[in-house]
């Protein structure tokens, strides 16, 4: 009667199965990566005027994926000229209902080619296919669908009877959500009637270039969307070009400040979505199991390469031990490895540079006396990897509690009263997002009124919807993206 032996607590049930999920890699054959990519200007791909190129790598293997054109000042000028021409002749005068048709087409093609985009994004960025497949790509399509709906209803958006587009938008986006950030920028700009010059991040240009192919596929008029690949200088050339009417930037606070300074005294409108050091506040009456999931999702989603990541866990002292213990147990189940494996939870760090930054800040945490913990987690031999890491015993004054790490590193602080939680949460130059975990609705509202953060999540974290505005306070930037509010950034309202 082996099936009914007594269930006395045993060290390990002899019968229990050591059950490993077999590797389940998504096929990379679905996407064709060209050896060379040009710039997308005026509806066509062309090499850079100066012929410069740079390589883009797969951060999980350090293997070179493709050689990509590096746009110089002449290319920026050509792209802005094409965008201006398209704005004056085609896209600006086009009725909103007609613009909407193009946006709907882009959205549908993104859905049709979702697997292709997901695989390419995972290859170029290092994030797990589970996330690109279930979050990045569907959300990118959702943004195009959402703003397509606004294109012919702008007079009802609350910005006056006849809101006008701004003209040519220069848009510089980061490497953490390459396609999604492109969608956040392009969809509202195009819906409002602007034309765009988009500069994807140096380390993740490929999905923006595939999106450019989609623009060709749907017959978007030439010059409406231009994609210039390159590094920081290319971005600087785009935002300082005199014929750009609008600058939209997502990236580091440091670069954001430079852009704001460069735009000062010009007629350019600017929206900036910058860094963050969000507090995820867990009260003693929180649903512990789900709060732990929310903490994991808050800081380990996309390897912590998220500007709104819940990188500071503020936990009420009476439950601090149990929350940390359960968090650690949960972290031992995370699966780190091949981003293309469908069961991978934690992928690769996007670049050597970012890995060095995470390593340096974590070392500062050790040096300042915080206690570091990581689950037993072998790292692959090649590529850029960092294990999920939790620092306990962190003080507000520690660098790991103040500076944005932008990696899978969580700092745990405790608090006693709700007032202290608010004070600590707000004690940062940033103000992008925050999380609250409690069973009390009244406390959620009380906290949300006091937290200086553009987005406050209650009993959830890192939830995004195209209908919901997103943006920051203080050094996390200004302007909102998403929702009706997101239109304001692209209308002369």
């Amino acid at each position, binding site marked *: 009667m082996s099936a009914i032996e007594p269930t006395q607590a045993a060290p390990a049930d002899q019968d229990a199965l*050591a059950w490993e*999920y077999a590797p389940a890699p998504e096929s990379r054959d679905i996407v064709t990566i060209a050896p060379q990519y040009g710039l997308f200007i005026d509806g066509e791909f062309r090499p850079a005027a100066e012929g410069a190129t740079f390589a883009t790598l797969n951060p999980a293997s350090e293997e070179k994926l493709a050689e990509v054109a590096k746009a110089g000042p002449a290319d920026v000028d050509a792209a802005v000229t094409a965008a201006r021409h398209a704005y004056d002749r085609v896209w600006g005068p086009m009725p909103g209902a007609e613009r909407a048709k193009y946006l709907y087409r882009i959205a549908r093609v993104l859905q049709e080619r979702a697997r292709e985009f997901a695989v390419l994004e995972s290859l170029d960025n290092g994030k797990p296919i589970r996330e690109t497949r279930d979050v990045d790509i569907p959300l990118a399509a959702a943004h195009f669908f959402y703003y397509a709906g606004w294109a012919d209803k702008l007079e009802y958006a609350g910005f006056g009877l006849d809101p006008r587009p701004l003209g040519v938008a220069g848009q510089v986006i980061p490497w953490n959500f390459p396609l999604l950030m492109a969608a956040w920028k392009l969809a509202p700009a195009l819906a409002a009637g602007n034309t765009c010059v988009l500069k994807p991040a140096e380390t993740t240009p490929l999905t923006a270039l595939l999106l450019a192919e989609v623009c060709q596929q749907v017959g978007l008029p030439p010059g409406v969307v231009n994609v210039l690949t390159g590094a920081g200088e290319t971005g600087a050339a785009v935002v300082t070009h005199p014929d750009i009417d609008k600058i939209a930037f997502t990236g580091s606070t440091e670069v954001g400040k430079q852009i704001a300074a460069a735009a000062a005294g010009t007629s350019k409108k600017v929206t900036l979505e910058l860094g963050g050091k969000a507090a995820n506040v867990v009260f003693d009456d929180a649903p512990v199991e*789900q709060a732990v999931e929310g903490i994991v999702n808050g800081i380990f989603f996309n390897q912590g390469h998220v500007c709104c990541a819940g990188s500071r866990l503020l936990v009420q002292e009476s439950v601090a031990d149990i929350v940390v213990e359960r968090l650690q147990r949960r972290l031992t189940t995370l699966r780190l490895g091949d981003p293309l494996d469908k069961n991978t939870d934690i992928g690769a760090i996007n670049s050597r540079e970012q890995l060095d930054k995470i390593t340096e800040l974590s070392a500062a945490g050790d040096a300042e006396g915080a206690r570091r913990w990581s689950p037993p987690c072998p790292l692959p031999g090649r590529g850029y990897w960092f294990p999920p890491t939790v620092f306990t015993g962190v003080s507000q004054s520690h660098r790991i509690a103040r500076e944005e790490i932008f990696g899978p590193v969580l700092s745990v602080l405790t608090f006693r009263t709700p007032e202290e939680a608010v004070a600590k949460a707000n004690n940062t130059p940033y103000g992008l997002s925050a999380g609250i975990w409690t069973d009390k609705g009244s406390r959620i509202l009380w906290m949300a009124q006091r937290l200086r953060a553009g987005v406050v999540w209650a009993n959830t974290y890192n939830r995004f919807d195209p209908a919901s505005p997103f943006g920051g306070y203080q050094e996390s930037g200004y302007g909102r993206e998403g929702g009706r509010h997101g239109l304001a950034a692209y209308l002369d309202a």
Partner: protein
Amino acid sequence: MGIESLDRLAPGRAEFDVAEVATSDAGLRQVLHGLPGVDQVGVQERVAGLATRSVKKDSKLRALDLAIRMVDLTTLEGADTPGKVTAMCAKARHPDLADPPAPPVAAVCVYPDLVPVARAGVAGSDVAVASVATAFPSGRASLAVKLADVRDAVSAGADEVDMVIDRGAFLAGRYGQVYAEIRAVREACGPAHLKVILETGELATLDNVSRASWLAMMAGADFIKTSTGKVTPAATPAVALVMLAAVRDFELTAGRRVGVKVAGGIRTAKDAIRYLVLVNETAGPAWLTPRLFRIGASTLLNDLLMQRTKQRTGRYSGPDYFTVD
């Protein structure tokens, strides 16, 4: 493993004596309502996330064999006959004579009057006999009748007893009554294993599922079980997740591993594997044994066998190649 040795329960909270708190509804209420809350939206999200786990190739094959060994092959109909039960027992012992043959299931599950038939049917094998009891499925009978029902099943040879809790008493907050009933049934079971059916489809909230799980474990359950299979919804991944977290936390505080049985509505191998993923990543791999996880089902077994054949041969054979009893 006696409940009396359980000196500390809800983690991080004051120590207390279970025997003492169990003497009153108020004492039990304090413990059960002091458990951390369960957020329904968060549970759904986690379940949806785990449902995307990809189980292929060798790991799928192992999962299928494990799932077969976890099946409580069940027939609980008014129309059950000794012949049907005998045939089911034969199937339970040798589900499929493929090469290599499929492993036997964990148990057969029948009404108390058919326990002797089942006992004879599985004689000489490792397959256990489980019997529902305590006025299954409604539980609407006096305690005396319920206990007689249990003794009847055990004396007829049941190795395992699946009891139902009094949902009315639980929902009305009469926790003491539910506790006392489970204790009494536990006594009446003697050496037989006790599975306590929470009937989660009638408990309305996941908070209640968590509380009922703890109440049953405190009262001495060997297994907590989702459903009778007679009420919709029966087992759901969300409910299973909450119960698996409860048994995991109970072990951490009480030092005793309690099993989980999901029952009702699990018909495909795909569903069964998803439950195994929940077990693996919530309670932990220690629960991946028929001793601690069971799936109550009737039609599931054939789909497991069919998928097993497919996985081994690369070909699907029709349902006619698998016996229907």
